[in-house]
């Protein structure tokens, strides 16, 4: 006999739920009763800036993949296909909102002003994340799946205790965003974060980029219900948005963030998107998914639709696109050069920050390492 593992007998799967969409894959702006108002202020300049972010995010990503292939990075988790989800949500943030990312939020990092070189440094193996988390309010990448959702929730509990929600002062009220993926929704930590945020009414937005794949495991290995519906069970709203639609992601995120800042508690946003690339540069997706699926999603590209919209509505001329291409080239060139120039850390520096004050034991081990390494110095000269 076979074991029935899908949501039901073949053919009985419920229709996919509606998702919030403001810009069709063809670049057509479609009206929305609820969300139009949330982006009423978004003008041509804002569209151009978001388009710039989308293009630069993709360029950083493709450059990083190339650097990995050239042996300059140990690994790179590509964001290809998820640019709109990241840029749309990140552009909804205010300066003092806080972000707790996974390891794939390169587009969010860009929008928060983190130098992409710092991301490359991490994946080159030079450090483990040394960007300014205080100034950028973009916290360190978290690789253990879902762990950062609890950090975000705890941070939001701190925001509550500081009285930084519900004051009506836009320069004070603060929201926190936890980014995570569809695979993470199976983790205990994510479910615990939902519970904590719910019972404490913490000002946190759970922004799930459902890119359909957790390495090789498709969504149906993680869930039998649409992910955004999970929120209902925890007692807060959930919404599914077209994750390849930067305007819709902006609108939905703005609403959720404002709810948080107003003291109305958490929201789960499921950005329905697709991981166009491999899980990381170490992965081979041809072993587990079909080209046809990729082709299907290529038609929904998050960048092409914005370009089509801009061209159709005269939001940008050819000079803009040419300038942007030049800017992306320049950024890529800088990253290429500076990445290769990143110095390896001093071996004895590994002892520097295990504790705030070095322990006697670690000082002794550092000296031991230094002596051992020094013992080769003479030999090198002799050779």
């Amino acid at each position, binding site marked *: 006999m076979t074991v029935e593992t899908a949501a039901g007998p073949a053919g009985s799967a419920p229709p996919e739920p509606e998702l919030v969409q403001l810009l069709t894959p063809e670049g057509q702006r479609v009206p929305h009763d609820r969300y139009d108002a949330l982006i009423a202020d978004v003008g041509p300049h804002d569209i151009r800036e978001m388009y710039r972010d989308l293009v630069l995010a993709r360029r950083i990503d493709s450059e990083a993949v190339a650097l990995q292939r050239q042996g300059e990075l140990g690994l790179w988790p590509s964001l290809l296909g998820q640019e709109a989800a990241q840029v749309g949500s990140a552009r909804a943030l205010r300066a003092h909102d806080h972000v707790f990312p996974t390891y794939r939020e390169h587009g969010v990092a860009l929008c928060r002003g983190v130098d992409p070189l710092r991301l490359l440094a991490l994946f080159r193996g030079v450090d483990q994340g*040394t960007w300014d988390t205080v100034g950028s309010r973009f916290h360190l990448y978290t690789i253990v799946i879902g762990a950062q959702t*609890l950090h975000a929730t705890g941070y939001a509990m701190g925001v509550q*205790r500081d009285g930084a929600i519900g004051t009506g002062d836009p320069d004070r009220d603060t929201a926190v965003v936890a980014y995570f993926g569809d695979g993470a929704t199976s983790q205990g930590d994510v479910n615990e974060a939902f519970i904590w945020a719910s019972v404490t009414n913490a000002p946190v937005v759970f922004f799930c980029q459902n890119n359909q794949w957790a390495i090789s495991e498709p969504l149906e290995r993680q869930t039998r219900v649409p992910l955004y519906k999970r929120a209902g069970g925890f007692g807060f709203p959930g919404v599914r948005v077209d994750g390849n639609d930067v305007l819709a992601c902006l609108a939905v995120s703005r609403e959720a963030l404002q709810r948080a800042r107003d003291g109305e508690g958490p929201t789960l946003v499921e950005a329905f998107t697709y991981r166009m690339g491999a899980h990381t540069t170490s992965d081979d997706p041809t072993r587990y998914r079909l080209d046809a699926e990729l082709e299907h999603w290529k038609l929904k590209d998050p960048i092409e639709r914005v370009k089509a919209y801009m061209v159709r509505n005269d939001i940008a001329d050819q000079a803009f696109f040419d300038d942007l291409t030049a800017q992306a080239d320049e950024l890529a060139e800088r990253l290429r050069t500076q990445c290769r120039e990143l110095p390896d850390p001093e071996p004895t520096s590994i002892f520097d920050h*295990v504790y705030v*004050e070095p322990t006697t034991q*670690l000082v002794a081990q550092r000296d031991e390492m230094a002596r051992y390494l020094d013992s080769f110095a003479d030999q090198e000269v002799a050779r």
Partner: protein
Amino acid sequence: MSVESMTLVKAINSGLRRAMEGDDHVLVMGEDVGKLGGVFRVTDGLQKDFGDARVIDTPLAESGIIGTAVGLALRGYRPVCEIQFDGFVFPGYDQIVSQVAKMHFRSGGRLRLPIVIRIPYGGSIGAVEHHSESPEAYFAHTPGLKVVTCSNPADAYWMIQQAVTADDPVVFFEPKRRYYEKGDVDLDSADSVPPLESARVAAPGTDVTVAAYGPMVKTCLEAAAAAADEGRSLEVVDLRSLSPLDLTPVVESVRRTGRLVVVHEAQRTLGIGAEVAARVTEECFYSLEAPVQRVTGYDTPYPSARVEEEYLPDLDRVLDAVDRTFAF
């Protein structure tokens, strides 16, 4: 001088209270720590006096307790997390080992997580499974954590305050079988309190060094008294800090006595005793008259209550090990 006799529970409670009075950013969080005051009453009365924003009854999930404490610490708070029993820390183990312990290191020293994780530990209380374990070695094996344990009310009172003000994360093990034993606490001795990461000689002696910590210190002091009746002088060292491990007084002592017995409730293999034995062998090789002896729990899961006293080290097993050091 204000000296009060109080139980170890009361000493930690008073220490926490003082820490909370001293810094508004100190929070207490855990299961049942608020209204109930904790299942052992360690946090009794704190929520009443400091409010439920600072003394937080959390949902029942240890990873959530530690994980949200990380976020609170990043926001500038100093959370003191209570894990209700030793055997329940493991759902929070990933957050402790992968997140709490590494944040300062991986951020290149930019981020500090001044979190205290309090864990009542050890056996001899007749409890059911998961309520009598000694998991300290798992944490002492993890770089980035400080792991300390108190053996008496005076140390408990001061060490918990030192742990709260420490800028590194501290796992604070409390010997639950000693919770309701009393001792004198000098509430005004702040200036003469030894550093958190220091061992101390609990009883001076000349013939054999006995190193112990937490609940076993009292057992070893009793063994020393019994040995004295037989004309043998044991020097008992209370290690107090398991990471970093301060072996200065142990090494100094073994150079005089030539003999060392290490005692802990936790299972033997790769336990704190193994580390002590290795380091003392490195430091005192020519002083040792006998191999270092370990008196520990056995390498089994923690047994049923009706047989736990045979599993746990006691006065006689300590003295038996002392005898063995004279057989070489």
